[in-house]
């Protein structure tokens, strides 16, 4: 039996006043798969991510998240479905009035509160928060406030917050935008690690082709605790096969395929996104 997709778009159209932000978008994401979404500014990349968890009103079409319809459902019905997915915002989207630890703890306490339990911190929640912060190598920032850490660290805390509930799907909105190449690569390494350690599905919006290359070319090896190039590990090729690239233009998907297919594309628009920066 085919596994149920974690996310499925069927002919989705989204319009903001007179502009179509998404036009006839269809895509499917199975557990453990990765999709890299490239496209110029305003091509509908971020709208696609927000539509996936029902943050945007859909004009027509269907969006299924974990098998449940999210397009145009009542906001109050969506909170429970949304809390099962992880979402990393462009600037981290951290709550600036509470500490890093409390930010990462938020999804756990929120889940407790929505189940009718008390929203108090317990040893268990603190341990999970520390584990999640350790995953992004920022355990020492537990008591700091978001304003006291750097932009790159805030993104990493954003990742820690998104994955603390161990969601089967994580959506990343331009996780490397505006960061220097070294920090950007660190972030991408963490995203690959999250994918390979927990086998979660990832939908990554980015403007850097190298981000997709890292996801496609590298595999996180848990025993060695580092990223390994897939060519060095034959069994990792199966993992490699699960990364696909999507290129968007004016709200439409104009390319879907593997990295090799992307690099072989003759489309001048698509070719613009294939840059090899050293």
């Amino acid at each position: 039996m085919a596994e149920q997709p974690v996310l499925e778009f069927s002919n989705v159209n989204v319009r903001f006043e007179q502009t179509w932000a998404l036009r006839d978008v269809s895509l499917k994401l199975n557990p453990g798969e990765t999709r890299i979404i490239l496209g110029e500014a305003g091509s509908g990349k971020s709208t696609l991510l927000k539509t996936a968890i029902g943050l945007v009103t859909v004009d027509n079409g269907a969006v299924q998240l974990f098998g449940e319809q999210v397009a145009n459902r009542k906001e109050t019905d969506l909170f429970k479905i949304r809390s099962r997915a992880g979402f990393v915002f462009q600037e981290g989207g951290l709550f600036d009035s509470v500490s890093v630890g409390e930010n990462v703890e938020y999804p756990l306490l929120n889940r407790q509160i929505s189940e009718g339990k008390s929203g108090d911190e317990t040893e268990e929640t603190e341990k999970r928060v520390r584990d999640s912060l350790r995953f992004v190598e920022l355990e020492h920032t537990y008591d700091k406030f978001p304003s006291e850490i750097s932009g790159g660290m805030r993104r990493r805390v954003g990742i820690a917050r998104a994955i603390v509930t161990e969601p089967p799907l994580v959506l990343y909105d331009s996780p490397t935008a505006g960061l220097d190449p070294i920090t950007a690569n660190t972030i991408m390494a963490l995203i690959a690690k999250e994918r390979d350690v927990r086998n979660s599905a990832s939908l990554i919006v980015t403007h850097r082709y190298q981000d997709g290359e890292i996801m496609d070319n590298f595999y996180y090896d848990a025993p060695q605790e580092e990223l390994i190039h897939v060519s060095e590990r034959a069994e990792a090729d199966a993992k490699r096969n699960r990364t696909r690239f999507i290129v968007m233009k004016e709200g439409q998907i104009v390319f879907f395929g593997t990295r090799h297919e992307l690099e072989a594309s003759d489309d001048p628009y698509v070719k613009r996104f294939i840059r090899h920066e050293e």
Partner: protein
Amino acid sequence: MLGFLKDLVASFQDFLFLAGRAYANVFRRPHYYGDVALQMDIIGVGSLSIVLLVGAFSGAIIALQMARALSTYGASSQVGTIVSLTLVRELGPVLTAIIVAGRNASGIASELGSMKVTEQIDAMRALGTDPVQKLVTPRLIATAIMLPCLTVVADAVGAVGAYLVSVPLLQIITPSQYWNTFWRALVLNDLAQGLGKPFVFGMIISLVGCYYGLQTTGGTQGVGRATTQAVVVSSIWIFVVTFFFDKIFVNLT
């Protein structure tokens, strides 16, 4: 012109939707009691010092003005009555509401506005929390409870302020006369006005502040605009509502 009117009606409709959801959430789980307590502290305890000062001085000012006006008619002994009625019915609730609007409608709008422009509201929705439940309803409850309390405090210190002017300073009346006339002037209707109005004002201040905060667009400039609009609009609503409240209650006596 038509476009402006359409925008006005549309924004009032959005405001009513937000208000409706905020009220519905009062009776719906989950309840964020911690946030309600925190907001009560910020709005209530935080505004206490300024309410004390303004309340005391407004009482003293009424006494000063009325002492002179009443002496023309040889009715200086009625100063307690006048202070009591103006303070409890009108000035106490309205002045306190205006202070809290200036202090907290702006605070709420700028806080929520900053959260909106830095994607924190979207993050909250993405994490599965209703921002209305988590941010608006606690502020609504806290302001609706704390504003009547602050008004009572303002009335009390206003009475003392007027006492200090009428009795020790101007010596136009004896202490027992003052307190007697002050107390006897009040009927149940005055109390209903004096506490009912701030209860409604509290809801207006918090909802208008939250509405403009959540509607913020356009970065830091947008936050500044939302803050100004929140104070201006809530202050206008306070006076409009006072008029209609008075129209109903004055006729009831």
